[in-house]
């Protein structure tokens, strides 16, 4: 199957520090990939490179078999949508106006349908006329997710399955909305959308992702299914925490952190 996104030995060096180091990655349609790793592992930088926002020092990104640098911004927005970690809106736009921004120059009626649908999906339909800056952090994050969903839908209507990038989309959300959000993203996969999400919560990653990419100090440490990627051994080596891995009745693994790695133990 042809990949929607392909990263070829991508590296990013900023001021002598190597933030991302020779990463190869292929993501197929309908696939949901979680990028996990400790703080400073280069997750967000990698995602920004994959989105076309940052130009890598070495290597290249191919989006639908075409170098991502060759897309003009408007074209790029049709093929990939990205939700950043912190979006700070200073002007009193309403939730609906913000979500509408995802629709670009789509027709009025079609755009409104998509906006209403997305607001429903993120459970903000009743807040559509509230001013965004008056909402809580989590509600704002959901509004921005709705905006990105609208952008994705607009692009996919014209150009077929696209790429959805999410940078810690659940960081301000309560438990229910975390699961809602990841499930909504996962549902997009049924239409062929490829999803790449930076996630902090390993349990969430194991529960929903088809593949887990574990980054460590800018390098790709592990890339595989949840059982291969997440073992007590890897977690101890990379996160420096002892964990106990158990299984739900459906056979989904979950983590229970135990203690810090004892002081003085050799580093990986």
């Amino acid at each position, binding site marked *: 199957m042809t990949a929607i996104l392909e990263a070829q030995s991508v590296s990013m060096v900023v001021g002598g520090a190597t933030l991302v180091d020779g990463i190869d990655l292929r993501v197929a349609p309908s696939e949901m990939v979680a990028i996990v790793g400790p703080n400073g592992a280069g997750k967000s930088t990698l995602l*920004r490179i994959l*989105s076309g*926002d940052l130009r890598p020092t070495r290597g290249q990104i191919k989006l639908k078999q075409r170098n991502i640098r060759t897309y*003009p*911004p*408007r*074209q*790029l*927005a*049709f093929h990939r*949508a*990205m939700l*950043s970690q*912190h*979006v*700070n*809106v*200073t*002007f*009193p*736009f*309403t939730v609906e*106006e*913000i979500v509408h*921004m*995802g629709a*670009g*120059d789509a027709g009025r009626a079609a755009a409104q349908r998509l906006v209403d649908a997305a607001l429903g999906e993120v459970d903000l339909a009743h807040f559509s*006329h*509230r*001013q965004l*800056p*008056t*909402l809580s*952090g989590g509600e*704002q994050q959901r509004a*921005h997710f709705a*905006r990105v969903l609208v*952008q994705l839908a607009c692009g996919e209507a014209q150009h077929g399955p696209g790429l959805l990038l999410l940078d810690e989309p659940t960081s*301000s959300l309560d438990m229910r909305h975390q699961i809602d959000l990841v499930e909504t993203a996962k549902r997009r996969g049924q239409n062929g959308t490829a999803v790449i999400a930076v996630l902090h919560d390993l349990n969430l990653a194991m529960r929903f992702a088809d593949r887990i990419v574990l980054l460590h100090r800018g390098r790709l440490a592990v890339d595989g299914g949840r059982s291969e990627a997440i073992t007590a051994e890897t977690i101890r080596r990379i996160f420096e925490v002892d964990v106990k891995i158990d299984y739900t009745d459906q056979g989904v693994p979950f983590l229970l952190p135990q203690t810090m790695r004892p002081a003085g133990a050799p580093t990986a």
Partner: protein
Amino acid sequence: MTVLTDGSAKRRSGYALRPPASLTLICLFAALAGAALIALTVGAAGIPLARLPAALGLSGDAAAGPSLARDQLVLWSIRIPRIGAAAMVGALLAASGAIMQGLFRNPLADPALVGVSSGGALAAAAAIVFTDSQIGQNLRFMQHQLLPIAAFLGSLATTVILYSIASRSGRTSIAIFLLAGIAIAAIANAGIGLLVFIADDRQLRDITFWMLGSLSGATWPKLATLAPVLAIAAIACLSIARGLDVLVLGEAEAFHSGVDVERLKRISIVLVSAMTGVAVSVCGVVGFIGIVVPHLLRLVIGPAHRLLLPASMLLGAVLLVGADTLARTIVAPAEMPIGILTAAIGAPFFLGMLLRQRGLVSQ
């Protein structure tokens, strides 16, 4: 996470009730017509409303009294060009403020406040002084075009410098922006001071005119400079409106949403500079219109630029026509420089905004 608001955000527990766009524009047009009508009738030489149609040539037969010739002279050679200039300058200043605020994602940005107007005034003053010299002699015949062009280039240089100081890898610090603006304004004012020092008497009179900011020098040729700039700016404003909306999400998000951010920034910077520069070349530095007008409008019609920019033009025109009428009547027969008037009203307004939303500076 700090939630930053534009003041209105906290009203009515955050629900936005906004009038329809058509109603907003109709009301603003009506206000502009009203302001212009009042401005036509009052002044050092009062023209009662009853005599206005005759003087404007709208009714031929009316009592063609002895005052008619005088009325006509006052209206056509002084008052109408002046009202036209006030309206167009107000429109340019208010819209350039709104664009700058969109560009910097902060309602506290204003071209006059951060030295863009001063940069334009410095270049205009330099043009006055140096076109008088030997080298400039052959440029003097095109003074009507030279001053706006010089002021535009001065404003452009200032805006570009400001932007490159305040922005780093897509993030803009409003505190650095405002402080850099103060420094740039100080440098420009020092330059103007130096030019005043070396200017001869006639040049000095011309330069003083800019520094005070007055519309008393408005003439038909100046309207001919203002009108095309305003027309082009109005069209350009509509073309960047959606981009400025999306830019509120931040430069990276705007790029992800399909906006060509670099192009949008270039157009915005050139627009702000052209609008401010041309306004400055006509009536000197008039502050605070660019900050008061968009802020008031956002409270009522919301921040979407497709409506905010044209509405800012209209309300800016209303405000400056009103302020100019006030300026030439409150101390009649003398005239108060309009820059003093707008600063006296605008500066406390700005302080009020600052006090209510301290968070806007510390982001």
